[in-house]
């Protein structure tokens, strides 16, 4: 899309969403504080506020972690208890950070933060090297199919900026990386506290030839992160103005979850199987010739066919899987364990169906990455592979192929809580 206005280039800015993972005290909050501080994204009144809060806690120098540790309970306990979102921008990109806590009991927060991220920063304390938690974080990043991973080996100042320490940790990580499904892994030695290799290149580590973290965040190629191959349009809402001007207008509104749709394209609608052609793609500003993921548009079709929320518009030569039998990896969020034979509401794209859990295939031992087929009870913060039967067919892709049409949540019908997040596995992928 081209924009006409003179705007100092900010209309060419891209959006990058990233998440941070690490164990407690590895320096996540400090790193985020450092990124914000060194990129001058922190305002004077915020600095004043954290200086004051620091003084109340009896600290002398400014504690960057306080910038992100927001809620009162966290302040008091000095930990991050829930996903917090942070924002900053450079002339190149706008960044959205999902700051997620590292405690074992909060796996659900990392999964949540990871679900929308293009990139994950995994922090390792240089003094501790790769620990169980690191494996857990790397596994979750891979399970959630975050396209890019940056392993930051932090607190290099506490190991004399020693190259050997960095190399050893890098090798440790690489030794289990083949078990993961990650396309892009990079390593950077940093000190979040002192600022080495975060925004400014480190003078203390001349042996490191790579880029700073900020350079990477600003330049890593993300245009390929959306699926522009498989056209998928879940219908979200039907627009019927019933005005004189738009008398018979029926617009199918939604957000494109994959691929590209052009005016004149042949389309097929699930579940009816009916076919038609795209007549127009409408937005308030203009009529479009084509639209692509992740745009929100309204589509009209040539023929008068019945289409409603929860249906999916695709192209006849590239179909999603249609089935009532779903196999998926599930991440469990609730104190009440997953009930085999239990019934839940499953929300997938804009579709909602009842489902029953048929079987737990295995529970993942995330720390060793082994499959446990003995103890198969999926409790809070567990991850496992399950089989589900839905009351009506879903139209989906493997999560690996499309993060939107391959994901779902489970809702408890009594409490209405979101109890689990699923990533669909198919035979092919």
């Amino acid at each position, binding site marked *: *899309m081209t924009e006409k*206005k003179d*705007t100092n280039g900010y*209309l*060419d800015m*891209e*959006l990058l969403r990233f998440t941070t993972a690490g164990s407690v005290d590895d320096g996540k909050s400090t790193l985020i504080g450092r990124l914000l501080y060194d990129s001058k994204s922190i*305002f*004077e*009144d*915020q600095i004043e*506020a954290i200086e*004051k*809060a620091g003084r109340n806690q009896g600290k002398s120098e400014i504690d960057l972690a306080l910038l*992100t540790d*927001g*809620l*009162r*309970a966290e302040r008091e306990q000095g930990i991050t*208890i*829930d996903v*917090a*979102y*942070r*924002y900053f*921008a450079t002339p190149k990109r*706008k960044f*959205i950070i999902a700051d997620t806590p590292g405690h074992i009991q909060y796996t659900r*927060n990392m999964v*949540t933060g990871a*679900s*929308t991220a293009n990139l994950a920063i995994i922090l390792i304390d240089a003094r501790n090297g790769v620990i169980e938690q690191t494996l857990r974080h790397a596994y979750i990043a891979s399970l959630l199919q975050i396209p890019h991973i940056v392993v930051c080996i932090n607190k290099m100042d506490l190991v004399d900026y020693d190259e050997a320490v960095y190399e050893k940790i890098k090798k440790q990580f690489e030794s289990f990386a083949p078990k993961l499904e990650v396309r892009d892994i990079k390593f950077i030695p940093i000190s979040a506290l002192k600022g080495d290799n975060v925004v400014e290149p480190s003078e203390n580590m001349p042996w490191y030839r790579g880029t700073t973290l900020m350079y990477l965040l600003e330049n890593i190629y993300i*245009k390929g992160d*959306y699926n522009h191959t498989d056209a998928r349009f879940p219908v*979200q*809402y039907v*627009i019927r*103005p019933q*005005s004189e*001007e738009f008398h018979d207008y029926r*617009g199918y509104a939604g*957000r494109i979850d994959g691929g590209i749709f052009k005016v004149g394209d042949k389309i097929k609608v699930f579940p009816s199987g009916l076919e038609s052609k795209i007549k127009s793609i*409408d*937005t*308030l*500003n203009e009529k479009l010739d084509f639209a692509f993921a*992740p*745009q*929100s548009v*309204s589509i009209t079709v040539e023929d008068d066919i019945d289409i409603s*929320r929860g249906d999916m518009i695709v192209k006849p030569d590239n179909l999603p899987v249609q089935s009532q039998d779903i196999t998926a990896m599930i991440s469990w969020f609730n104190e009440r364990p997953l009930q085999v034979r239990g019934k839940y*509401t499953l*929300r*997938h794209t*804009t579709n909602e169906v009842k489902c029953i859990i048929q079987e737990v295939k295995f529970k993942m031992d995330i720390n060793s990455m082994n499959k446990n087929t003995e103890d198969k009870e999926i409790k809070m913060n567990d991850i496992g592979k399950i089989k589900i039967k839905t009351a009506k067919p879903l139209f989906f892709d493997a999560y690996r192929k499309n*993060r939107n049409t391959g*994901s779902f*949540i489970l809702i408890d019908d009594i409490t209405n809580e*979101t109890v689990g*997040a699923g990533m669909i596995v198919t035979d092919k992928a």
Partner: protein
Amino acid sequence: MNNYHLNHLRELEAESIFVFREVAAQFDNPVILFSGGKDSIVMFHLARKAFYPAKVPIPLLHIDTGHNFEETIKFRDNLVEKYGVKLYVGSVQKTIDEGKVREETGYNASRNVLQTTTLLDAIEEHKFDAAMGGGRRDEEKARAKERFFSHRDEFGQWDPKNQRPELWNLFNGKKRMGEHFRVFPLSNWTELDVWQYIYMEDIEIPNLYFTHKREVFERDGVLLATAPFMTLKPNEKPEILDVRCRTIGDITNTGLTRSKADNLKDIIDEIAAERTTERGQRFDDKRSETAMEDRKKEGYF
């Protein structure tokens, strides 16, 4: 492939439109909280986009403290008329008159906290099941943990420790009778994004945002407008300055910025160079570091 890429504002726009449509689909009786400030104006613009070419099917609710800039009310009424949307007004004055809350006294008296009661009453009276607000996560630390779809119990309260996980673009708006949701379509926008977007889209905003001459006085480092219901301390001297609003709210706590910016480009340059947050200019947030969190738990915007 280069063609198939959105800039950051278009991507935020697509996300917000998605949220609007999701609200229209998942709730029976949603409402848009409209203050007349730039965030609610941008929200309404996004709502128009979400439902085009139909009219916005969601009514507006203005919680009126009675302490308004005149221009805000005019702007609101024009917008309602122009786009044919329904407007509800919840009056803080009425809440006070009914004896449900007591007006603060003293120099820093503000009706800001009182709005919560009026808002919850309006939600209950009209049986709104989703109230859409222009809150952004970049505004304040307590908001940084807020969900797009934020569940409220039957007392309208927020439990920050027990929020529903929110993954991908799957929003769970299920609730029991009497409960409601607060929904924040602008969650991922920053102040600068909002301004850039207003410029990019040529969105009409009240003149208060541009430079104008106004009688103001300084209190604790913040410039406030003089008004009949504001009592000046003996040492506070009103003077006429070139100012503009960075946020528009209740007159008693809307800080003004000295500025000669008379167009959006200049405003954007000013914001980009700013060294304080817009909330820093809100009088009420200065009260304590966790002021916002405490108010939000009670059911504030």
